[in-house]
């Protein structure tokens, strides 16, 4: 049987907040960079389909996703022990294109991001989410259930 694509991932960490603009994506990028600096193999899955911030934050906004036999290849950032990234940002024809999708289409892509991306062997997969508690969050948690979901980090600001 084919190896499920998150099977080689040791820990999955979800970064959540009810609120927008509090620094979820910022934390995800910095956390990934710090873990990689500590010698870990890291990936970031960006499931914010309307406002994907991860590509720019890792300076990968001009990268494209390629396919292989086991599915999509994540975008690799950095030379030494690169960080593996997946985001809808890499799939847009133009960066300013609005992704105007209703729930079912968003859910289908999230499932693909989890099951059809060849993530490989990773110590940590960090999942960046959009604000709210809706389709993306429900679908992500459901699709991650079979895997090593360590838990969620919640981000806020003081007010």
């Amino acid at each position, binding site marked *: 049987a084919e190896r499920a694509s998150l099977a080689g991932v040791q820990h999955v960490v979800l970064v959540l907040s009810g609120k927008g603009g509090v620094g979820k994506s910022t934390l995800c990028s910095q956390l990934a960079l710090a873990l990689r600096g500590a010698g870990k193999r890291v990936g970031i899955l960006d499931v914010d389909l309307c406002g994907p911030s991860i590509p720019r934050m890792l300076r990968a906004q001009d990268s494209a996703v390629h396919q292989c036999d086991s599915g999509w290849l994540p975008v690799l950032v950095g030379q030494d022990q690169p960080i593996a990234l997946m985001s809808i940002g890499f799939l847009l024809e133009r960066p300013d294109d*609005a992704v105007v999708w209703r729930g079912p289409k968003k859910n289908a892509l999230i499932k693909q991001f989890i099951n059809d991306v060849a993530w490989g062997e990773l110590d940590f997969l960090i999942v960046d989410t959009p604000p709210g508690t809706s389709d993306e969050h429900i679908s992500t948690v459901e699709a991650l259930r079979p895997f090593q979901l360590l838990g969620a980090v919640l981000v806020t600001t003081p007010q």
Partner: protein
Amino acid sequence: VRHTVLVLSGKGGVGKSTFSALLAHGLAADETKQVALLDIDICGPSIPKMMGLEGEQVHQSGSGWSPVYVEENLGVMSVGFLLHSPDDAVIWRGPKKNGLIKQFLRDVDWGEVDYLIVDTPPGTSDEHLSIVQYLSAAHIDGAVIVTTPQEVSLQDVRKEINFCHKVKLPIIGVVENMSGFVCPKCKNESQIFPPTTGGAEKMCQNLNVSLLGKVPLDPQIGKSCDRGQSFLAEAPESPATLSYRNIIQRIQEYCEQHHLEEEKIM
């Protein structure tokens, strides 16, 4: 409803709800105008707290749901009023959210309204598609798009501008929030969110949309929102208040002018 203004942003946390609340207060300062504020952010409804209406309930009558009134001429509706506890998470998929938005538009007894302001969640998804669709029979004057100066915000806001073009929603203009901070003691100005790619000003030039104004950071804004007070009333001398008032006036002028143009056509 005479005028409808949608407050949008691709990005979260840039001040849409803050702006919606202040726009509502600003317009309602004219007691002859009837103002309605509709909060369709179903997952993160901020309007009840910002308007000092936490804990209020919605009443039903023969003519529908009653909005919650802040002033006689300022009524508010939000999913926040329908929750048993303010910490209850609304974990709904798109179709259920759309259903509630339809109800807000159809079953709320707003009465005669001069301005309907619609506060939205961040993004370009179910809520945004639905509100544009459901209001298409009525007339939306346009959208006010809110951003902050940094590129991480602008890149999402450009998408929102494209969304507006796609659904043929006129753009009244862009508001740049958190645009600099002036220290009240030494009067030095700092760019807390540096506009590394030219800020909203450059983006508006490039995309040929109006920049309605820039609002500086003022810690009093967040405080007033937390306390459910109108920042415009609490800090009338703040440079941020001046900016907000100018922006609100420009929005009023836009709406009035379009009304006149329509009347001419008719």
